[in-house]
């Protein structure tokens, strides 16, 4: 699933190459903890992803690392870093694979094991090295710890080396043309560099970094939203091809985020198309509004649109009510045929009733009339279910314009006869904690 593509510098810790951890963490942005994407240098010489630093500056105007004041305009591309990151990303998975296949994970006996492993796999490695270098046989000096690749490369270099012919001439240090010694200095002034024998053509990506592609796209300037009337802001959004729906705060944050996305895209070596940016913006907006924990700063609470929320989740409330009704029907049909059944069924539930906690959020229950609530607690489970469902249904019908999350949810819980205990002081017994059994382990491989 999603977690498979999440890598971290600590992945190296369990391998014999744990020394690569600091190297890799130096190639990662401290804000998103991922490899730098379009790294930018701040005025205080720190590096972040373009998008990360632009978002941080848009909200705080300070470097996240040293809190020196900074401005988006002053950011400069850090192409060397980008090159380093790309190169490392290319080499990472194979290196990690090799390190893991050889690794005796982090045990104190690692060194001994390592030697053993090396001896065991010695011949194997030779074979693969031979295949890599394209030679059928390996030279006799092969069983060095260095891979065959390296050896071949060294010999490549040796092929190029030609011993100086004894002709009384010297070679130009740049183009290697042979000439008399006194000619060298004047020649160097006009020398065009190595003669056309480009054994190693420049890598395409290097070329791309060296010559940034057409910088056609202009960065968009920041906007002082307090100076902008609603209509003017809507017009700006429309001009950019963005949605003009929603209250003022949403419009502002939408516009601000698009500027950030756009400007970060301008920094990129391979910029995205505008349509892609707009869809990025939309998914950002979805993430900001829906899903996830409700917490938030005060600002978030102000932005909360209760009516829209109720409309949006109206269907799920209906589903919950329907399910509660279904469960009730099932419970009834069960209790009718077997007469002894219900009593027996009630027995084990008694303790649950006694400890029936007030549901997690007391406010969620209070609106259900006090009489019902008290009565519910003292009734046997089945009736209690009925009661709860009635309450839920009645409330839903009578005031459908109010969000009913707490109430219907309560009904739902009660209908199963086992209100989910909240993790409260009593339920959490740390002494019994078992890290493996705890709910925190879902990502473990």
């Amino acid at each position, binding site marked *: 699933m999603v977690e498979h593509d999440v890598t971290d510098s600590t992945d190296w810790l369990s391998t014999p190459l744990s020394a690569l951890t600091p190297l890799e963490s130096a190639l990662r942005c401290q804000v998103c903890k991922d490899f730098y994407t379009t790294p930018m240098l701040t005025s205080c010489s720190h590096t972040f992803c373009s998008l990360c630093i632009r978002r941080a500056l848009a909200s705080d105007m300070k470097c996240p690392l040293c809190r020196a004041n900074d401005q988006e305009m002053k950011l400069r591309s850090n192409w060397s870093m980008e090159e380093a990151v790309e190169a490392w990303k290319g080499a990472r998975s194979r290196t990690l694979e090799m390190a893991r296949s050889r690794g005796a994970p982090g045990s104190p006996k690692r060194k001994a094991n390592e030697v053993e492993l090396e001896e065991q796999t010695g011949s194997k490695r030779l074979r693969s090295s031979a295949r890599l270098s394209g030679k059928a046989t390996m030279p006799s000096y092969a069983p060095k710890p260095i891979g065959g690749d390296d050896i071949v490369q060294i010999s490549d270099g040796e092929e190029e080396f030609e011993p100086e012919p004894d002709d009384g001439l010297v070679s130009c240090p740049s183009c290697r043309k042979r000439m008399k010694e006194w000619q060298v200095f004047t020649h160097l002034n006009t020398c065009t560099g190595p003669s056309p024998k480009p054994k190693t053509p420049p890598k395409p990506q290097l070329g791309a970094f060296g010559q940034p592609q057409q910088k056609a796209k202009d960065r968009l300037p920041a906007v002082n939203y307090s100076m902008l009337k609603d209509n003017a802001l809507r017009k700006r959004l429309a001009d950019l091809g963005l949605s003009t729906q929603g209250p003022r705060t949403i419009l502002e944050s939408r516009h601000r985020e698009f500027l950030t996305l756009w400007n970060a895209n301008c920094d990129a070596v391979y910029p995205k198309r505008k349509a892609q940016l707009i869809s990025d913006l939309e998914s950002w907006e979805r993430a900001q509004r829906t899903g996830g924990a409700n917490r938030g700063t005060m600002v978030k609470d102000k932005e909360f649109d209760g009516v829209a929320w109720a409309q949006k989740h109206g269907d799920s409330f209906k589903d919950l009510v329907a399910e509660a009704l279904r469960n009730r029907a099932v419970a009834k049909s069960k209790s009718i045929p077997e007469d002894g059944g219900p009593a027996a069924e009630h027995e084990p539930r008694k303790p649950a009733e006694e400890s029936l906690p007030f549901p997690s959020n007391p406010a969620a229950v209070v609106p259900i009339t006090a009489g019902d609530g008290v009565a519910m607690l003292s009734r046997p489970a089945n009736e209690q279910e009925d009661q709860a469902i009635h309450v839920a249904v009645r409330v839903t019908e009578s005031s459908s314009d109010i969000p009913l999350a707490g109430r219907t949810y309560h009904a739902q819980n009660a209908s199963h006869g086992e209100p989910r205990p909240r993790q409260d002081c009593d339920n959490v017994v*740390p002494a019994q904690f078992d890290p493996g059994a705890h709910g925190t382990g879902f*990502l473990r491989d």
Partner: protein
Amino acid sequence: MAQSTAQRRLLQEYRALTNNPPEGITAGPVSEDDILHWECLIQGPEDTPFEGGVFPAELKFPKDYPLAPPSMKFLVDLWHPNVYPSGLVCISILHPPGDDPNHYELAAERWSPIQSVEKILISVMSMLAEPNDESPANVEAAKMWRDHRDEYERKVRDSVLKMLGL
């Protein structure tokens, strides 16, 4: 599904915490559905009255994490000057640099996007060892800590023992 910045960053942190767990700290998302809600366990630091205890807490992350800090709440009663009776933790690393109603926190100690769950939990551990009584969240506890240290330590020790069921 495209992941939001906050989700991705939290997955990243979770990965780092499982690969290289700091001593005395366990943390992770409660469920796969909601990565913005974590639960963690903190060991009471040694040589403090909290020693021997294991304190569960929940962390709730805002959607614009890491621009804004999470909130942290202990799920057990904790008698400590910097923990509200509700369990909410009041510590400078959890406060955004913007607002400082009390003007006592240094900007350098506040939240910044480069902070992480690990750093928060380590700070909380050291907060357990060394309360800050300049702006207490639990005034009674702060008074007791300042004026009757023995009583404070006894009370904390008792609550730890009680929590362990001893």
